[in-house]
């Protein structure tokens, strides 16, 4: 099977980017996966759907990200044998995705790791909460049991278990280190602690309300997720968002990127023993958040992006003040960058630490800034530009070194590039409406939204239900792919460097756990 054949048979799916969809039987589904892997695609996500009420089938959908297109390859299974070919031989991330699909929907891959992933004993193994005939309100007592971590044995090998409650103000997850002395031989992650049933919750919401839940799938990427959801919905309805709203959305997305990067730049200094960096960058981040409050009425931009546009039209004077503050922040970032670069002690901690080999990054499907810090030029804003990025292409920040220092450098470059984009938009902000009404949506419509958030590409796949409801909504955070790389990046490092390496990735738990 080759991609040309696929292109002839595929149908376009409404989206803000180019998306093609095709459905196959089991054998061709696997052949298509093989063709995707050969072509260098990233397996972005897998999601299942329970269509037994419609045609007696379960379905599995695999989304493959290529530089010019997102492919969705579907496969239907009869309800009495919900088994599909495992993709874990071709794509390392498939194992966890397949385990998550099985925990929620009870459809199985025919190979690979079969330990539970999202189900930690909070519901019985015989209950599949995402099935349509399962009452979302039905709760179960927790029946926890030991999780079978992979055990490393040998002379002097010991384990350090960390989490789910961590020593700082961070999200919950478990890390199991196997070490000799201080050197890390193996890291195994166990995630899913923040699983709060987002996919099931979507199914009890209206289409025009779902953006509020998408906005809270991962709070630090609220603009990216709510924009992805709204893009899916607007594409489904062929709604054209007014130019002013488009520009304000992009402004908000870049401000979100800058705020998160500023926080990380400070935290990376702090974790390497330079508390000065934390003080300086956290102050800059606070200044930015206060500007957000002046411009959009809130420090974090929850519910700013709404179906049809944005919820808040900033006053002109606030935009002028923002422009001036951003110029100040840019000057300060440039100054601090020189201090970081010239600080031998800091650079000594960052360089060579947490190294990811570019070939490995490619194999594991690295996304977002982690990929860019391994020399992989992957950025949706350039690869599949949607408005307004089609007219305002950013320069992709690339560094091929693959270590903590590289991820720091990519953040610096991206902050400056985002500030450049913001300044362009603020200098020429379109006038006019900030929102349009969406028409009624027929049941069974599909839409895909994809946005390059500050961590990487986020996806929302929405299907409409009856009475303007959501039949199914799947959202994907790029942390799924990058968590796997973190397990590799820490190998052969000393365990004391884990916080620094972990911070250089700064992956989402909530966005992953769903």
């Amino acid at each position: 099977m080759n991609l040309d054949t696929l292109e002839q048979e595929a149908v376009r799916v409404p989206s803000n980017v180019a998306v093609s969809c095709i459905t196959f039987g089991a054998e061709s589904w696997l052949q298509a996966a093989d063709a995707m892997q050969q072509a260098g695609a990233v397996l972005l996500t897998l999601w299942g759907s329970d269509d037994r009420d419609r045609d007696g089938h379960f379905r599995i959908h695999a989304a493959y990200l290529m530089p010019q297109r997102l492919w969705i390859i579907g496969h239907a299974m009869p309800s009495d044998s919900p088994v599909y070919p495992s993709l874990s031989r071709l794509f390392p991330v498939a194992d966890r995705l397949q385990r998550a699909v099985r925990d929620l929907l009870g459809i199985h891959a025919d190979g690979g790791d079969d330990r539970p992933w999202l189900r930690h004993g909070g519901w019985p193994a015989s209950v599949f909460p995402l099935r349509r005939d399962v009452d979302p309100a039905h709760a179960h007592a927790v029946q926890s049991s030991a999780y079978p971590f992979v055990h490393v044995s040998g002379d002097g090998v010991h384990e350090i278990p960390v989490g789910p409650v961590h020593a700082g103000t961070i999200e919950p997850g478990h890390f199991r280190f196997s070490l000799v002395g201080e050197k890390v031989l193996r890291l195994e992650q166990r995630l899913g602690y923040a699983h709060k049933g987002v996919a099931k919750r979507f199914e009890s919401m209206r289409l025009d309300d779902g953006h509020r839940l998408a906005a809270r799938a991962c709070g630090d990427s609220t603009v990216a997720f709510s924009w992805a959801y709204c893009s899916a919905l607007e594409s489904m309805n062929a709604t054209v968002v007014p130019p002013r709203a488009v520009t304000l959305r992009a402004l908000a997305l870049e401000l979100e990127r800058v705020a998160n990067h500023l926080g990380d730049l400070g935290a990376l200094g702090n974790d390497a023993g330079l508390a000065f960096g934390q003080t300086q960058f956290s102050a800059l981040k606070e200044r930015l958040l206060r500007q957000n409050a002046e411009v959009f009425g809130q420090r974090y931009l929850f519910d700013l992006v709404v179906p049809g546009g944005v919820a808040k039209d900033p006053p002109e004077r606030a935009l002028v003040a923002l422009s001036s503050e951003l110029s100040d922040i840019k000057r300060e970032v440039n100054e601090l960058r020189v201090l970081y670069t010239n600080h031998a002690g800091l650079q000594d901690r960052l360089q060579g630490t947490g190294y990811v080999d570019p070939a490995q990054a490619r194999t594991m499907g690295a996304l977002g800034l982690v990929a860019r810090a391994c020399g992989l030029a992957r950025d949706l804003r350039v690869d599949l530009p949607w408005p307004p990025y089609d007219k305002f292409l950013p320069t992709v920040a690339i560094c091929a070194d693959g270590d903590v220092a590289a991820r720091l450098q990519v953040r610096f470059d991206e902050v400056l590039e985002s500030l450049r984009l913001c300044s362009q938009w603020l200098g020429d902000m379109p006038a006019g409406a900030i929102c349009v009404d969406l028409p009624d949506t027929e049941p069974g419509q599909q839409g895909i939204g994809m946005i390059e958030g500050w961590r990487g590409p986020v996806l929302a796949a929405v299907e409409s239900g009856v009475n303007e409801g959501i039949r199914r909504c799947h959202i994907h955070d790029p942390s799924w792919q990058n968590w796997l790389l973190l397990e590799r990046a820490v190998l052969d490092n000393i365990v004391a460097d884990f916080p620094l390496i972990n911070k250089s990735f700064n992956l989402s738990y909530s966005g992953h756990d769903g």
Partner: protein
Amino acid sequence: MFDILSRIRRTGRLSETGPQAGKATASDPLQSKLHQTFGRALCIRQVDAGSCNGCELEIQALGNPYYNLEGSGIHFVASPRHADLLLVTGPVSVNMEEALKRTYQAMPKPKWVIAVGDCGACGGIFGTSYASRGSVGNIIPVDAMVNGCPPSPTALMQAIVDVTTGMPQSGQG
């Protein structure tokens, strides 16, 4: 090194005056109230019991130079055994239920619990389901709640001051 020192000097002090307990006046500042209650300092343990990470960002902001929580003798500790106050963000996922209970039990008495954010206070948009137990109060005893999505650092500081000085909670973000 000279560049760093020079920048520190130019940055100056950014810390703002924190909120006062209840109707306290300027002569009755936060720090002296806390001194009366604790002698020296207040130790906080934070647990994310299933939050979206929005509340965590604002809790982290408490440490920036503008709010300078440590300057008031309040600091975050790595173990619940060292903590006087538990800040919990939610909703409480079923997968975090046991870890939250064990963290609470590990704290010495007397202890306070503040449920942070709309989700921690009432379950928020996630509510209760197969995967979510909803509000923090459904799992462990709660002394105060701070609403908001997320609550501002100022609202968080006000709640910390109020609960530890025995003031009726304001409850609003």
